[in-house]
């Protein structure tokens, strides 16, 4: 199987990238503005050189940077990312508890934006230069042009305060609803798995608005890309060949138009994953969503060195891995990539 070998190669290639990410993040974190120690020890402790020195020795901060790095990597390999100074828990533990909420939100946003974006883009291409096309182009422009933060506030104003269709910015569930037992960490999934219909509908109602807000930028991007690449495909000579063989419209759409139109769309979507992560931080803040974004903001405010380092690594890791996944999907769609020319 060509695609399995391709996938294996692609993921092996991600390892040096991840290592580079680790080095760069570690060095940058050491040049972080502000003095975490002063912050941590307070005015009194921070001005006492002995306390500072003892503290530095305790945390290994008196050793050379490269030695600190190897200690950090060694711990990382054992699943230890150090202690968070503001939650007083292990950073790894923190990340694992905040991550599922973000993943759930991100996946919901991608699904929302992907499905609607692909449909809108296809519609626009099929009705090229007619009113559906103009409408979709206007939606796409708006959706990816409006800042996430602002869009979130507007959405709350309209759908929560005015229309009352959506719950307010109260996180993942209403306070009266108990979270489902943790299986995957995603409430919508876990409530289905444990057959808890109350939690399911409540968590679904809570995720729709933030997912739509977070996915808006993506929706604009996906629909524009899909429209453009579908217009190209509709003009392609192989479509004329397909028609000349007497294929019906369904076969042509399913096997000739769609896969070819998806290839460039997928590539662009992959490049935009970083934007989605940045958007998650803002969306979580607006909707009080207890995810990595919120954790990152709190860590930054507290100058929590270990937590910031951990979050940065995690986001980088997610970015590298999603890109590898996108590349594999891309190769699965396009045999010219998979098998080489």
């Amino acid at each position, binding site marked *: 199987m060509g695609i399995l070998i391709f996938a294996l190669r692609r993921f092996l290639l991600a390892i040096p990238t991840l290592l580079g990410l680790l080095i760069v993040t570690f060095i940058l974190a050491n040049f972080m503005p502000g003095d975490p120690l002063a912050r941590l020890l307070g005015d009194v402790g921070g001005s006492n050189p002995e306390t500072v020195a003892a503290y530095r020795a305790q945390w290994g901060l008196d050793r050379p940077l490269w030695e600190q790095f190897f200690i950090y990597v060694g711990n990382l390999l054992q699943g230890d990312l150090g202690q968070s100074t503001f939650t007083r828990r292990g950073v790894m533990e923190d990340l694992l508890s905040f991550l599922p909420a973000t993943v759930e939100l991100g996946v919901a946003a991608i699904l929302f934006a992907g499905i609607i974006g692909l449909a809108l883009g296809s519609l626009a291409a099929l009705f090229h230069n007619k009113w559906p096309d103009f409408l979709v182009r206007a939606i796409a422009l708006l959706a990816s042009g409006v800042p996430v933060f602002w869009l979130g506030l507007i959405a709350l104003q309209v759908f929560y305060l005015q229309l009352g269709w959506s719950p307010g910015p109260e996180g993942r569930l209403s306070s009266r609803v108990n979270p489902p037992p943790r299986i995957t960490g995603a409430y919508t999934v876990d409530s289905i798995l444990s057959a808890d219909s109350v939690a399911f509908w409540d968590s679904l109602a809570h995720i729709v608005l933030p997912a739509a807000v977070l996915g808006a930028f993506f929706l604009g991007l996906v629909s524009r890309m899909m429209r453009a690449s579908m217009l190209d495909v509709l003009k392609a000579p192989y479509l004329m060949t*397909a028609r000349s063989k007497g294929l019906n419209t369904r076969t042509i759409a399913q096997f000739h138009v769609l896969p070819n139109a998806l290839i460039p769309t997928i590539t662009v979507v992959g490049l935009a994953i970083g934007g989605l992560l940045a958007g998650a931080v803002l969306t979580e803040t607006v909707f009080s969503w207890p995810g990595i974004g919120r954790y990152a903001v709190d860590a930054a405010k507290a100058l929590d060195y270990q937590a910031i380092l951990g979050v940065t690594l995690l986001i980088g890791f997610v970015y590298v891995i999603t890109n590898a996944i996108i590349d594999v999907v891309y190769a699965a769609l396009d045999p010219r990539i998979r098998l080489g020319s």
Partner: protein
Amino acid sequence: MSTVTVTSRIGLSSPEESKAVLKVSDLVVEYHTARGIAQAVNGVTFTVHAGEKLAIVGESGCGKTATLLAALRLLPSPPSKTVRGSVEVDGTDLMTLGPKALNEIRGRDISIVFQDALSAFNPVLTVGRQISEGVRQQRKLSKAAAHELAVDMLARVGVPDPDQRAKQYPHQLSGGMRQRAMIAMALAGEPKVLFADEPTTALDVTVQAQILDLVRSFKDLAIVWVSHDLGVVAGLADRVIVMYSGFVVEEGPVEDIFHSPKHPYTAALLRSIPRTDEMSGTHELVSIPGSPPDLVALPAGCPFYDRCAVRVDRCATDRPTLERVGDTQTVACWVAQAKDIAS
């Protein structure tokens, strides 16, 4: 408007051969451009009999491709519009069919091969699948039967190792191989008529010769072959149609067209064939002076008037119609027709 008398033109050797499998009548195609309406095909009419090889020749832009695509209802609209005409395949007019009925004839009774096989194949599907998918849909074949058909077709067009090739993607085949595969794809439904739009132009001479041999071997297949290359036409065709700015200007058996062209454009075209000088080995190309008329503003008279060496006054105002000249040819030229009557 051009009309052609089609009966009794070709030397009828058997009743079987006289059966017309394709009748294109008064085909008119326009392109809507920013400059106005370009009249790309102007009343093209021709008939193809079972097993007959018909060539359409003419300069670039004279409407050869537009004719073939319009006949199969493959021209994208907009910008093009097939204004008029009928295309009868075995008595059924494609122009009046609904989409479903049309799809039952395309690929099965009539099909087409293009010049560039790489772009004519979908890059993400295997060659075998693309060869068989039309037939598979029409005859509801199983996956295994479809693969078998593809392998069989590839073997018939002389592709070595057909089982392996059928599983490969278009980009993995060589140019000549791909061209053969495209022919296999067009022939998979066992059509009676094959359109070929310069399918050998992009290939090197050796491969081109192999493809021509292959095509010649399909004795029962009626072929409409579009080409710039009169050398190819001479070796392949029974009959030739010469087109100029969307009009058929001359038609006849290949030997007669080559030995005694009646239309001044046909004669000029024949003179422009690059000949290899036996002594020096160099190619000399005599090009026809001038350029074809603007299709957006066709002249009222003969479209070849500006470039014609034998024109008379009448040619500027009256557009010549296709008339019989001599025993076997039809020609749209006042001068040739007058000469024929005089002799």
